[in-house]
């Protein structure tokens, strides 16, 4: 009998705790209702891509030396480098260069390894097309520069979460001059430089001091 009652008591405890967790969960859901929507109304509002965004690849025909490093580092040997050997000058003559963005995974290896920096990543990501073959960009298409989100007058550019000031998660009502939380990479570099130089100074002076204090050495 006692065992049965204990069982009932345990069961009731479990039920009560389950109900408590359910109410906690409801509270969390309810709390979310007073938060502002994070929606970015896409065609009218766009997020500013970050500095290291890997979008469509930009290519400068004149810089290219047709070395084919990009082809070798590409996971699927995607770039097509069309060159002929000019026997007179004994130099490669580049005729065409193309990358098919229908197959590219935007890993950025080609950009990383290009010896002449003729490949670079842009912030363009709107690559929708009616025909997959039109995603095969030749050197002219690759050479076009995308319009930046910030300079497009028909688009309201919004900052990404990491670029918002501390404590703010809604990019809509934000002054352009409000700085992001934390430091910019350039600031960090400057600080590091300053620190380093100061350290050097200190070392220098301490050396001098030690020299002075121990003249016998």
């Amino acid at each position, binding site marked *: 009998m006692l065992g049965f009652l204990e069982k009932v008591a345990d069961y009731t405890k479990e*039920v009560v705790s389950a109900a408590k967790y*359910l109410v906690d*969960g*409801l509270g*969390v*859901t*309810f709390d*979310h*209702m007073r*938060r*502002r*929507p*994070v*929606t970015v109304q896409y065609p009218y509002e766009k997020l500013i891509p970050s500095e290291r965004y890997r979008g469509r690849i930009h290519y400068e025909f004149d810089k290219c030396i047709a070395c084919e490093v990009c082809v070798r580092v590409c996971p699927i040997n995607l770039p097509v480098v069309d060159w002929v050997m000019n026997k007179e000058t004994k130099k490669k003559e580049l005729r065409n260069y193309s990358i098919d963005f229908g197959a590219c995974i935007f890993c950025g290896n080609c950009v990383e390894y290009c010896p002449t920096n003729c490949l670079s990543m842009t912030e363009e990501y709107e690559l929708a097309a009616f025909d997959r073959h039109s995603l095969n960009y030749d050197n002219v298409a690759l050479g076009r520069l995308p319009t930046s989100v910030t300079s497009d007058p028909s688009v309201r550019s919004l900052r990404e979460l990491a670029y918002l000031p501390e404590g703010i998660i809604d990019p809509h009502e934000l002054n352009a001059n409000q700085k992001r939380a934390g430091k910019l990479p350039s600031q960090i570099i400057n600080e590091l430089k300053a620190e380093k130089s100061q350290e050097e100074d200190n070392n220098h002076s301490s050396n001098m001091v030690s020299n002075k204090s121990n003249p016998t050495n």
Partner: protein
Amino acid sequence: MNSGIDLEMSFTQGVQNLGLSQELAHLLWIPLPMLLVLVSAVIGVLVTVWLERKISAAAQQRIGPEYAGALGILQPMADGLKLLVKEDIIPARADSVLFTVGPILVLVPVILSWLIVPFGQNLLISNVGIGIFLWIALSSIQPIGLLMSGYSSNNKYSLLGGLRAAAQSISYEIPLALAVLAIVMMSNSLSTVDIVEQQNTAGFLSWNIWRQPVGFIIFWICALAECERLPFDLPEAEEELVAGYQTEYAGMKFALFYLAGYINLVLSALLVSVLYLGGWGFPISIDWFSSLIGLSIDNPLVQIIAASIGIVMTILKAYLLVFLAILLRWTTPRVRIDQLLDLGWKFLLPISLVNLLVTASLKLAFPMTFGG
């Protein structure tokens, strides 16, 4: 308790004054409240769909429908129109007769159940003596429609969904009926009007929720299960069954399922407010309030105000419960089928039996407070 406004009486008398017989006047009266309730049920569904989308969006920090009308209020209308003009597809290998009858059989009992929902003393289609029992009986027809559409679609997901829906519906009807039985025992009547009146003796303190807290929770869980709302939406579990019994449906036939689901939700919320939250009763007794101002309760103005307050209160309470259902939808994960049946048979059924027993003994012990 005052009798409130009797629209039927005044209508039939008005028509009789035009020189028609009493029977004909009655016959003319009958379709009016039906039409009114049908229209209000559909409008209630549109509002619920809009609320569901907006509240879901808010709970997920989205915006929700925005461009169709102010705040997207016309979005459900647009959805309905889209479904209306869509092609009505009957799969080639499906059983076309059963495929068509299924959704109708799901919708009709739900709409019929609106017969007993009171918005005021005389503001319901029919104050039938068996009241709430009629609703329980009618809601037991639904599983047949679900089985029919599940079977006739000639699709394994549909069949499984239909079987699940029927099993769920049958299992949760029993604790639901037992929870209702405890209420009926306290108010000595099956009629929804009597149940509400018995709760409106002392404002919100006399609501059944204080005397039947366990019954209230059981009823609400079972009502959610009957409506196939999210913690219990196994019959249409997307991840497993595509869309359950509605997989093969499109256009208006799908709209019938959709409509039945939402009408059922609104109906359940209304019935919870009728059974447990005092129905059309204002939290403070209107009689007391009008005597405070010094107006007689028979004053026509007071009566009209009381009636409109009654309608507003009923709808307000119901929509608070709908809000709770939507909140629950985004809080609780879906249960497994064995957990669902465990909850129904091993938890809710014994608890509701105990609740019934406790209510009966309390009724014998304190006949004053528990309706002797």
